[in-house]
């Protein structure tokens, strides 16, 4: 009978939802929250924020035509455009009067908040439940930029793309802003009342019929709360769903240890690594640590032999792009290969399939490196592979050295989404609390969760967006962003972090703790109280407040690291079923928007996917062979069918992809994801089978349609040029100067002009080590966050107008089936003989005394000549007014130290000049020179493998100086005598003689 009541509501719900998203956020409220944001240093951004008529006028006079244009297709601003143009004309009349501007000081200025000086707070965010420590930059209580916390074991100072993008999500105007009751705007007290009274009846039922669904979590506080609830109501049930997590990983670990455990690897001791379709450098709770350790082992400049990586995977992953040997096999064939490898390494494994000769060589190599090798199973491989991998590691004596069993930090005894669906359908659930995730969208189609959810009498949904699930929930409560609330979480190694808010909830969002506390009959407790109380309760030591303060300050809680535990009794490898499919469909979270929770994040949508460089949609990866067989080329739409259900999507032919396999990506095809993420791409969940969620038997048929992909890199090969220069480890030992061996760089004296410019003071330069660049693209998005780079949208990307200041070029070489894959990050080269500067008629781009190639937006008239004459094509042009000057909530997000660009001006990488200037001012005040490492560019700071180094080339001890002195250092296109300040270190791979040539 609920359906009947819910259905009519839906119509209104949609309208409501659309209206509520269309309504501009209440800037008054925002201002209240940001009361701090009224300080003087804030004049710049806040008065933009206060977009008064004077301001618009003022802006017009300073940046004529600023509000001139936004990308096509947005009509509600047409008036503004016209206004802008007329004002722009006014701007032409050189002499214009500055309008009146206001200063809005504090009434009571908070302690230690000094206008103009940013503060950094330690906190953490969670990915699939595991913590990643962060330092968040706050300008007058507005979080503007996220950095990794160097002291946090799971971050080491780096982050992935998601942490970087999270600031945009915080200020996303599409976030739900009010409590909704059956689609109508309600308020929090009404909700609290309703849930409290519901709690009464639940109590009456001893919790019977109460179902609580959370995401994967490691939060001690949340677990304490849940345990309390389960204790007071034994019949209640806790379900956990995380679409991007394969439960087999956990179950395998638990089986091996005989208890709750986590398998951690130590790459700093590994000489040979075999990846069984694992993207260990880019995904998983410890990816950043692994990347750092792996990169260190791959370092060759001290003469040690670099780690050798064998990647066995169906489609090239970020980690796979660094592999020395690459075996492209179907995902479903990997268990068999794992077993063969196990057998060859002396593990008693059931016979599995025909021998793959390649495996023998790998096994031999592993045997050579007992105790210093790692076999790492894929995140989405079945339990058998995880067990086999551990068995191999055990057999090779890696356990204890490179492989560790740690106490698990995730809760035990929780139920899965399948259980929930069954319970719902069985009518066992009356009250359903969905405290995370978006199951109506992100559940395998076979569960038909949309049907199941209607069976519950009361569905409460806590979420940041009014999305697919909210539409079917009786109550929707806006969820607080992690930067808005208190919580806690633990890293893969157990280390706990107390997550502190950087800003009051912008839209009165609630945390999961604040919902659960209602069930615990303490509805008024704030997150802060709950979290603090929980820690206080569990704290044995003396001065709690001191511990609390230091923990907050450091971003970690001492003594919380998990203990190493011994393995339980050996687990026999289960026999394999007829695993290998004739044609398999592989399901993976999208490389940028993940499981779909990031769908409304413009930065992630526009971030080129590491392998394909496609933006704004998910494609179907197919192998070159299948492409030939079906005459498929980039953009051809195919129909993917898995037991009866099918979706259509454009293909992308991926060299190095396994034949007989197609990889499709979750996270797209959202129907309720706000203005950015709705209605793009196909929804892979719609054909996902709960039984075989990650690889399924299926079919792929060409439909005949073709679409244009928003692809930022059309050319796949290096076209007989050598932007990336690579060598074998053996060659490198003989010719350490291999990158410049063929084309020696142009002699400096080869010029008509006497060089009158000597860079005596500072001399900034950058060095990028191609050998350890995984192409994860964190640098691109960190740059976007630091430098207020605009999002241009799919149409503009398709026209070749994306704005990234640093792009990651990806080249293939060798044969089509198993090619070499190279990644090359390309920022501005800051050439000493910059071709762009010479051709600018208004001196809008000139060199600084320190050799920076400065781009002066406010002087630029937009001839685009500089870009034409830039051999590296690193310049980006504002063809329209790309920067969003209209959306109020966005103003808070911008970095106040970087101009927001207007229409018609050129922009490009500035080496993060704002950071350079800040450092110079600080050191000048202290009367000293800048030390190496004191300035980190955004891309350098975020890089998980530390592939980018930046510094003063006049400082002989600077890392960058040393790197540029290396023999494998070379400048891109330096035969043009542009004398780039950004140089590269050649790529060296350490392949196995036994297999040489087989990797292509």
């Amino acid at each position, binding site marked *: 009978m609920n359906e009947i009541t819910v259905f009519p509501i839906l119509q209104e719900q949609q309208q409501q939802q659309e209206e509520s998203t269309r309504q501009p956020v209440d800037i008054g409220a925002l201002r209240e929250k940001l009361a701090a944001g009224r300080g003087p240093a804030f004049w710049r951004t806040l008065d933009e924020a206060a977009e008064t008529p004077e301001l618009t006028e003022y802006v017009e006079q300073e940046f004529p035509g600023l509000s001139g244009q936004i990308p096509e297709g947005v009509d509600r601003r047409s008036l503004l455009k016209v206004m802008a143009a007329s004002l722009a004309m006014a701007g032409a009349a050189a002499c214009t009067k500055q309008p009146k501007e206001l200063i809005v000081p504090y009434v009571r200025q908070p302690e230690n908040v000094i206008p103009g000086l940013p503060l950094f707070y330690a906190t953490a965010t969670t990915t699939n439940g595991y913590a990643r420590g962060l330092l968040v930059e706050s300008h007058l209580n507005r979080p503007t930029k996220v950095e990794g916390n160097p002291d946090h074991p799971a971050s080491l100072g780096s982050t992935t793309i998601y942490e970087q993008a999270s600031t945009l999500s915080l200020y996303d105007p599409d976030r739900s802003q009010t409590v909704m009751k059956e689609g109508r705007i309600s308020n929090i007290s009404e909700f609290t009342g309703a849930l409290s009274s519901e709690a009464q009846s639940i109590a009456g039922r001893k919790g019977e019929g109460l179902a609580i669904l959370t995401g994967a979590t490691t939060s001690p506080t949340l677990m304490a709360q849940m345990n309390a609830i389960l204790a007071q109501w034994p019949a209640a049930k806790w379900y956990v769903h995380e679409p991007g997590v394969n439960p087999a990983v956990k179950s395998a670990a638990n089986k091996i240890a005989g208890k709750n455990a986590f398998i951690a690897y130590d790459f700093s001791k590994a000489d040979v690594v075999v990846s069984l379709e694992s993207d260990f450098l880019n995904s998983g709770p410890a990816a950043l640590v692994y990347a750092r350790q792996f990169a260190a082992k791959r370092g060759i400049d001290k003469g040690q032999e670099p780690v050798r990586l064998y990647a066995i995977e169906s489609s090239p992953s970020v980690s796979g792009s660094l592999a020395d040997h690459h075996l492209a096999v179907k995902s479903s064939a990997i268990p068999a290969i794992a077993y063969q490898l196990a057998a060859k390494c002396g593990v008693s494994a059931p016979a599995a399939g025909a021998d793959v000769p390649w495996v023998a060589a790998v096994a031999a190599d592993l045997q050579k490196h007992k105790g210093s090798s790692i076999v790492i199973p894929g995140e989405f491989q079945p339990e058998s592979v995880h067990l086999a991998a551990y068995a191999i590691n055990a057999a090779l004596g890696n356990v204890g050295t490179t492989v560790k069993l740690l106490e698990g930090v995730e809760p035990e005894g929780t139920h899965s989404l399948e259980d929930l669906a069954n319970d719902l359908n069985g009518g066992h659930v009356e009250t359903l609390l969905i405290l995370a995730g978006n199951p109506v969208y992100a559940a395998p189609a076979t569960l038909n969760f949309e049907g199941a959810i209607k069976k519950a009498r009361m569905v409460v949904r806590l979420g940041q967006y009014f999305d697919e699930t909210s539409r079917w929930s009786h109550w929707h409560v806006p969820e607080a962003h992690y930067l808005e609330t208190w919580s806690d979480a633990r890293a893969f190694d157990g280390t706990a972090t107390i997550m502190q808010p950087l800003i009051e909830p912008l839209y009165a969002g609630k945390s999961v703790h604040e919902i659960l506390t209602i069930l615990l009959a303490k509805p008024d407790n704030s997150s802060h109280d709950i979290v603090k109380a929980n820690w206080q309760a569990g704290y044995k030591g003396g001065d709690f407040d001191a511990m609390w303060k230091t923990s907050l300050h450091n971003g970690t809680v001492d003594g919380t690291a998990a203990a190493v535990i011994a393995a339980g009794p050996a687990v026999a490898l289960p026999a394999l079923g007829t695993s290998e499919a004739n044609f398999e469909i592989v399901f993976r979270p999208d490389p940028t928007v993940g499981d779909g929770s990031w769908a409304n994040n413009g930065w992630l949508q526009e971030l080129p996917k590491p392998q394909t460089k496609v933006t704004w949609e998910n494609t179907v990866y197919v192998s070159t062979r299948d492409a030939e067989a079906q005459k498929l080329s980039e953009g051809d739409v195919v129909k993917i069918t898995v037991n009866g259900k099918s979706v259509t999507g454009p293909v992308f032919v991926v060299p190095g992809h396994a034949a007989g396999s197609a990889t499709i990506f979750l996270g797209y095809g959202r129907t309720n994801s706000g203005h950015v993420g709705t209605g793009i791409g196909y929804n892979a969940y719609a054909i996902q089978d709960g039984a075989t969620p990650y690889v399924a038997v299926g079919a792929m048929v060409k439909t005949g349609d073709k679409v244009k992909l928003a692809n930022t890199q059309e050319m796949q090969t290096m076209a007989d040029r050598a932007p990336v220069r690579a060598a074998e480890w053996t060659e490198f030992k003989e010719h350490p100067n291999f990158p410049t061996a063929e084309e020696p760089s142009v002699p400096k004296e080869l010029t*008509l002009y006497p060089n009158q410019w000597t860079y005596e003071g500072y001399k900034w330069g950058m060095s990028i080590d191609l050998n350890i660049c995984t192409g994860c693209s964190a640098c691109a998005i960190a740059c976007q966050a630091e430098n207020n780079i605009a999002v241009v949208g799919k149409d503009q990307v398709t026209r070749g107008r994306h704005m990234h200041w640093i792009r990651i070029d990806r080249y293939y070489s060798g044969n089509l089936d198993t090619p070499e894959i190279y990644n090359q990050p390309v920022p501005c080269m800051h050439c000493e003989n910059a071709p762009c500067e010479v051709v600018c008629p208004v001196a809008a781009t000139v060199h600084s005394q320190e050799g920076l190639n400065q781009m002066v937006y406010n002087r630029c008239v937009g001839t685009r000549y500089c870009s034409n004459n830039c051999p590296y094509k690193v310049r980006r042009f504002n063809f329209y007014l790309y920067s969003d000057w209209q959306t109020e909530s966005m103003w808070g997000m911008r970095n106040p130290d970087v101009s927001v660009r207007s229409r018609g001006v050129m922009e490009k990488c500035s080496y993060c000049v704002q950071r350079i200037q800040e450092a110079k001012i600080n050191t000048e005040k202290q009367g000293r020179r800048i030390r190496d490492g004191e300035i980190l560019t955004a891309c350098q700071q975020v890089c998980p493998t530390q592939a980018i180094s930046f510094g003063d080339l006049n400082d002989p001890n600077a890392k960058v100086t040393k790197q540029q002195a290396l023999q494998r250092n070379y400048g891109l296109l330096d035969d043009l005598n542009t004398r780039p300040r950004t140089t590269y270190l050649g790529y060296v791979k350490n392949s196995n003689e036994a297999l040489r040539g087989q990797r292509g």
Partner: protein
Amino acid sequence: MSEVKLSEHPEIHGALVEFDTPEDLIEACEKAYSAGFRKMDAYAPMPVDGLAEAIGYKKNKVALCALCGGIFGAIGGFSLLQWITNVAYPHNVGGRPTNSWPAFIPITFECMILCTALVGVFSMLAMNGLPQPYHPVFNVEAFRRASIDKFFLCIESSDPKFEPKETTEFLESLGGRGVEIVPA
């Protein structure tokens, strides 16, 4: 010595005679010149070689002015650029020296051409006393064809030898047609 007698016939601009071909006109001019007349002017609907010389016109200063203009333009242009790049705001542009003189040549050249042309043309107009919409010779109806197909010689009253009667007779003796007194 012309100014001596200027005021003698204030009401008369001069005497005008009409010819059909440039050759006749030149011949007449030479006669008049040898007869001692100096203050006279010949009018033709198109440039006629030797006509100006025939009435004793020698030095033409237009070229000189144009030359000066050119020199001024070249020097001005080049020094402007040097000043901009070395004095006004010296920038490091693509590693090039502030004095990148080869790059300044095009603009220098254009400035030279521009000044040559403008100075030359304006000096021409100035020397010709143009614009001058009103001129006594227009008083003569027949003179209308001076811009179409007829050729005129006018001896002006400011000439010391000018005497209305004699001069008119003299002009008639030149074989021209329709000798007329041009009222001032």
